[in-house]
């Protein structure tokens, strides 16, 4: 508490000379932002993230500029005998910046750009759904208590006890069968939706626990009682009074959930139950590249480095965000 913002900020005295007109206070969020701005790690990881997200968003534009699509094949650039890219470092050239895939002969760079898009979209969407579910459940459990809390906590414990990978492996196929006949192709968007649903089904519990704990510590605060004494309804108390005080833990758990989902999605696709060929995807790409570890190491190198950078940047940024949103500032 040695450097609480109260000490840093000049405390206006009630009867002091009138402050200049239109004084606007700095909100806790703005203070956090200022701290974040001063954090070099946060800025570097944030810029990396921003760059990768821009690349992902601009994938079709990059395709046009680069002149190669993610499904274009360049089999003539592979050896006939071993299907390994000709030339250096997996076929790196002016036309194919990161080389080409062995076997299929597709351009690695543009597939990574699109893979980034798949990866980031799934991770962000999962994190958003997770946060939405987790926050709602956590607030309800924490504020209402009683049997609602008991039921939600029970479900949380149950979901935490389920082994994620085994569950995902067991669930993916029956879900596909339930919605698609044996002669119908399972569209990529459906697989994406199921992945998001699986992540959300598992991820919401930790957010819910976190939020529940926060809410329990907040619900006895007098500003909540003041709202109740003024006749505020449940909705107002939950979303107007409690929620703004939960942004810090929600943001931190969100920013740490995203990289977990990036790796999770890659892991599931690696195991063949996530995104499947020909949709560009990091997990599927790394799975294929493992077989060429010795003969074409460049194939695993580029997607490996990128997913590493993405996950590291998200994690560092999440940590920095947690520091910036230090609960001391919440007073």
């Amino acid at each position: 508490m040695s450097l609480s913002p109260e000490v840093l900020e000049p405390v206006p005295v009630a009867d002091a000379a009138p402050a200049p007109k239109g004084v606007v206070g700095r909100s806790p969020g703005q203070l956090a932002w200022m701290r974040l701005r001063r954090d070099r790690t946060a800025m570097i990881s944030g810029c990396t993230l921003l760059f990768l997200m821009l690349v992902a968003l601009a994938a079709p534009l990059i395709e046009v500029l680069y002149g190669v699509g993610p499904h274009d094949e360049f089999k003539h650039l592979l050896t006939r005998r071993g299907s390994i890219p000709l030339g250096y470092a997996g076929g790196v050239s002016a036309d194919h910046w990161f080389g080409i895939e062995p076997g299929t002969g597709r351009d690695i760079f543009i597939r990574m750009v699109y893979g980034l898009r798949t990866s980031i979209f799934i991770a962000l969407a999962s994190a958003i759904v997770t946060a939405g579910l987790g926050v709602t459940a956590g607030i309800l459990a924490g504020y209402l208590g009683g049997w609602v809390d008991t039921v939600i906590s029970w479900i949380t414990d149950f979901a935490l006890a389920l082994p994620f990978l085994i569950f995902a492996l067991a669930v993916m196929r029956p879900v596909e069968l339930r919605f698609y006949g044996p002669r119908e192709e399972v569209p990529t968007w459906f697989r994406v939706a199921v992945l998001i649903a699986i992540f959300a089904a598992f991820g919401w519990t930790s957010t819910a626990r976190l939020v529940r704990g926060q809410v329990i510590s907040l619900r006895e605060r007098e500003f909540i009682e003041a709202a109740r004494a003024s006749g505020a309804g449940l909705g107002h108390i939950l979303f107007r009074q409690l929620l703004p005080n939960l942004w810090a833990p929600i943001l931190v758990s969100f920013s740490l959930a995203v990289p977990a989902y990036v790796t999770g999605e890659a892991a599931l696709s690696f195991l063949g139950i996530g995104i499947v060929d020909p949709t560009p995807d990091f997990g599927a790409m790394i799975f294929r590249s493992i077989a060429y570890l010795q003969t074409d190491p460049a194939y695993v190198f580029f997607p490996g480095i990128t997913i590493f950078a993405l996950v590291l940047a998200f994690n560092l940024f999440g940590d920095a965000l947690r520091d910036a949103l230090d609960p001391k500032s919440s007073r």
Partner: protein
Amino acid sequence: MSLLAVEGLTKHFTARGGVVRAVDGLDFTVRAGQTLGLVGESGCGKTTTGRMLVRLLEPTGGRIVFEDRDITHLGRRAMRPLRQDLQIIFQDPYATLNPRHTVGRIVAMPLTVNGTRPPGGVKKRVQELLELVGLNPEHYNRYPHEFSGGQRQRVGIARALALRPKLIVADEPVSALDVSIQAQVINLLRQLQRDLGLAFVFIAHDLAVVRHFCQRVAVMYLGRIVEIGERDEIYERPRHPYTRALLSAIPDVAKLGQSEGRIRLTGDVPTPMNPPSGCRFRTRCWKAQDICATEEPPLTAGVACHFPEPEGAP
């Protein structure tokens, strides 16, 4: 006609090991514009009583009548119009304001919640309120962490005033403040009470503050009122031994250095889970007789004691 009438108000909490009789049958009334002080040691049930009055807690028994209307078990919707007349100020200036809301939003909250549209707009009303409690109305957009404890308490008061209530329950509004600030806030409350004709139920353990602010005083011990009466009656001529003991503990500059007349209570306050039979104070009372253990003294003529000091005694 009394603004607020409380009859046999009771609150029992179930806890592990039994029932906590936090409030066990209170009777009192508050007239419009009147201030009633509720004093007692911590744990005597005064805060619980305050919470029940504004219906933050559901009473276990008894009745709360506000403007001739029984509000004891009104639902949230039915309670809504009465909320405007019945507000509360809290003890902790740090917990009383939502740290993520601007002061303007905090003060406006009762208006937004009740959908009240004051003439001239919410912002104007909020600025009026801020001015009323002695804050710079331009600080509308500031956040609680930018204010001192006393200023925050003023914000809390402004919020309680937003709906122009008739009665405010002030739950130890100054006990968390510095002594110098306490006086400012008390003065503000007195001024508001006079200017706006507010009635107060003023909960405090500090008898000096109560004496300064309240017209009537009720003394609570273990969930019951042991003595109630006009301020001067209580302070000048306390009749219940407990009241006398409390009053004697007030440091008096005039009597500094004299230990004479100081009543030291022995023993701890018994647990409200298992209060003593008969008179609850008997375990610490120097006047206790056999009857005190068997018969509970009723509150007659403002005092609940088998052996009260005679009326009019100094």
